[in-house]
């Protein structure tokens, strides 16, 4: 039978069907968990950029509860940003952004104070950049530069400078050895901020 002309086609078909079936089953079993991981990563990122909401010691359930109770969903008034209210006033915005990085999509959240000029924090919660190089944009060493950063009034609200260069207000250091990721991330962030600012005017 192995020498029949049709055998390789049928064999390949059967083997592919069997392995695919196992993978589909496996993916279905883990689907809820993967989605939950993605959702919690997003919620934690929002909590981290909104002042006073994130606690490192809090467990996942607590963080989810906090997100549901204290973070307002995006509206037309907030131009697509999540908001945190204190005493009936907006205290801060959490603006999601995403765009093509060097390898794949980079997803993040940028927090902005009620003055719409000062960044509270920036968190990257989804990226597939080069480990140890471009992936460093998700590390606190890079993201912490955005804490209390005042945006510039130019078309680039945030400017990335080469590592080691002196910084002016509104500027941060790019990641060493990750020029392409840094260039793309700078554009993604500035596009999102420009779009948000124009809608908020």
């Amino acid at each position, binding site marked *: 039978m*192995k020498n029949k002309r049709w*055998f*390789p086609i049928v*064999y*390949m078909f059967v*083997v*592919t069907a069997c*392995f695919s079936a*196992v*993978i589909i089953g*496996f*993916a279905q079993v*883990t689907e809820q*968990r*993967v989605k939950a*991981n*993605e959702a919690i*990563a997003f919620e934690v990122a929002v909590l981290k950029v909104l002042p006073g909401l994130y606690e490192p010691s809090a467990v996942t359930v607590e963080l989810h509860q906090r997100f549901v109770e204290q973070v307002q969903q995006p509206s037309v008034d907030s131009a697509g940003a999540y908001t945190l209210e204190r005493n009936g006033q907006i205290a801060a915005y959490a603006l999601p952004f995403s765009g093509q990085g060097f*390898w*794949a999509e980079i997803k993040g959240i940028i927090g902005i104070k009620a003055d719409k000029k000062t960044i509270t924090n920036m968190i990257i919660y*989804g*990226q*597939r*950049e*080069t*480990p*140890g*190089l471009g*992936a460093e944009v*998700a590390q606190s060493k890079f993201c912490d530069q955005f804490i209390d950063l005042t945006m510039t009034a130019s078309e680039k609200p945030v400017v990335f400078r080469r590592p080691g260069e002196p910084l002016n207000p509104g500027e941060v250091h790019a990641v*060493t*050895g990750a020029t392409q990721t840094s260039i793309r991330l700078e554009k993604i962030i500035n596009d999102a901020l420009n779009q948000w600012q124009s809608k908020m005017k």
Partner: protein
Amino acid sequence: MKAQTKQLINDGLWTNNPIYIQVLGICSTLAVTNLVLNTVVMCTALVFTLSLSSLTVSLLRMFTPRNIRMMVETLIIAFYVIIVDVLLKAYWPQMSDNLGPYVGLIITNCIVMGRCEAYGNSNPPGVALIDGFFNAIGYSFVLLIIATFREILGMGTFLGYAVPYFSSEYWDKWIIMVMPPGAFFMLAIVIWVFRSIKMSKEEKSK
């Protein structure tokens, strides 16, 4: 232990090591070795994929037509790699993010296809599993040596923890070690050192 098993272990780890003798799987060697933790996970994924791929190829070898064997081998390898990828996404999403595209690229790792084709395809399942496992271990120990030097010299850390002196102000971090050229330098040094040791042992035994 049977002589054949001993020989397989010795080949995979030393005499026919996939990295410094066969010079296979270099892409991932260069790519993921800038952090030890990433390397550990990558190596674990490769041990799982290579062992089970070799076993599965061996189990199916009697039925697989020769003219489509490489397609079947690729399918089997992709199957195990996707399992690893899904597991990481579900149970260790941070590591899945850290490794980025490299888990998926195990499919194209020459060691996996090389061992499936050279050994799994023509030997019984038991020895194919052992051959796959020890070749993956041989790959892993070399990668871990490279990653250890790169992370300590380039970042001053080991597994993310600060290493005394190398994380202090007295050590000017060798950034080049965590960049692609650093991987080439380290790989060349490791190949040179291990081949020299091997040659010197062979000369002594003559």
